[in-house]
């Protein structure tokens, strides 16, 4: 539902709390652990 949006990490002590376009989105630990960040070519 937020595909394509830029995100920022607010907190990651329990799952992860993201800043997505100004909204706060909480992801459970399973999903947070499965996130893989790929560097984008410049």
């Amino acid at each position, binding site marked *: *539902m*937020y*595909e*394509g*949006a*830029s995100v920022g990490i*607010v*907190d990651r*002590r*329990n*799952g992860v*709390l993201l800043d*997505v*376009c*100004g*909204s*706060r*989105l*909480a*992801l*459970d*630990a*399973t*999903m947070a652990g*499965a996130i893989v960040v790929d560097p984008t070519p410049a």
Partner: protein
Amino acid sequence: MTRPTLRVALIGNPNCGKSTLFNALTGRRQKVANFPGVTVEWVEGSYVHEGTTVSVLDLPGTYSLSPDAPDEVITYDVVHGRAAGLDPVDVFVVVLDAENLERNLYLATEVLELGRPTVVVLNRIDRLPAAEMKVDVVELIHALGAIVVPSVATTQEGLDRVRHCIARAPDVPPSDLRASGAITDGQNAERRYEWISAVMARTVTRTGTRGTRSSDRVDAVLLHRVWGPLIFVAVMAIAFQALFLVATPLASLLQLGLGSLSDVLRGVLPAGDFQSLLIDGALGGVGSVIVFVPQIALLFLFIGALEDSGYLSRAAFVMDRFMRPLGLQGKSFIPLLSGYACAVPAIMATRTIPQTKERLATIMVVPLMSCSARLPVYTLLISAFVPAVTIGYVLTLQGLALLAMYIFGTVAALAAAAVFRRTLLRSDTRALIIEMPAYAKPTIRVLLSTVWQRVAVFLQRAGTVIFAISVLLWAMGHYPQAGTPSAPVSEEAQLAQSALGQVGHAVEPLVRPLGLDWKIGVAMVASFAAREVFVSTMATMYGVPQHETVHTELAARLRDARAPGTGRPTYTRAAAFGLLAFYVFALMCTSTIAVTVRETGGGWQGARWAALQFSYMLVLAWGSAFVVYRVALALGAG
């Protein structure tokens, strides 16, 4: 009847204020709260503007026009004119949360792409200063090519402009983001957000740094792995203590009022059957339930405050970790918690759960959560059989016993869900992604309105179902008459010989193993229509006079009742605990059964799920009552 001439649909992200705007426009009282997924089906209202009837549809929130959960499918169908029984919409009103403009614009662009008359309402502009944001509305109008109206739905600011723009929208050429080149066919989400980012750069000015918010600091505690669950348990414990401590004096006042009314009627009406019917039957039955209004109002006030503050989503996230091993995820937690108020809206709230089997499992266990209708039964039995002693300075044993009932129900619901998810409804549990709404101070007006609506439903039941059953039970208890005017018999003998007594004796073999007698059996049978009927039935059967305190008097009579011949207590503490267990687990609500049929597919398919739900809960209730009774007896509570 006036035919609506303009059909309007409110569309927007979850929790952006659509229902608040709907209520403000139409004067309806649709439920609003501060978490995503409050509205799960379309609701229709109307208003008249300059002689035109405007029919307004409030739709479930959605993040995009690519539906995921069942509630989002409803919005998709309405937008595309595929909703059964609904005429096509003339004007779309896209509601944007000004604080979350970037995310909200995604859906707005999708709606504007349709090339239909659209009004964009920029809601919650009053929150912009606190969020250190400014929005250039004129620039936003240029960017979207659509009518944009700033508004604050909660205070009705800008509402006249919204009505005016809706009326004019059909005459305004619709925005065409495709023609302007803003959106192209097949454009992916990334490209769409790029366009939105460019619009944001032109329209939004941030006056502060976009870093950590004060709500993030609160979330660091409330979402903490250890503190989060502990705070949640503490909040619940305080609430249930308050139910007993605060509501009891208010209930006593109500009882005094009912007692006075009874005295007045007794003085005015001649003694006889009619007086008895009115005072012992109707007033006794209905009054014994009405005295629980303060408890129920407090329960709804508490749940409403949780909903409006934004805490409910936090609680769902915190509880996700504990629910996952049981096969449920945090999104199931909100319907379960709503079940403390009433199972009917709670079952409907499961529409926000995208995964079908998770949703079905949640529906099947929601009625195990102790709803407000159980409160009168709990209060009566706890008052009668749990000593009123204080522990420490603030805790009472009766308050803790009440909390225990809610914990038993919750644990049973989670355990039953685990069984369903490992047997009939086996599937992988979906990962949790949940939006944390901004914290908000609960609005007193909205809170009181919600409480009043709920109390009104309770009073309506008291005035209809409970009234009718009370009168019927009175008649069954008085006829056929065992004595004659010249040779009257005792009340006990009359009841035993009456139609009610015969029904009671017929069901006695089922309740005797639970340490209960035929009178309780009658009350249990009667309360299958609605749980709170248990209290009114007992009040009617024990002929509790409307003096001073009805439920205190009834509690005393239950406690002091003695078996004829032996002189031993009719109801032991062990039997009372077993009875409490029965009411924790039994499904005694026709409305819940009906909504389960509807939400599980309707027709025979829905009926089968509802039958399974009713049956397993009945077996669980009787089995638990039997075990609790026997264990309590063995522990010396006889």
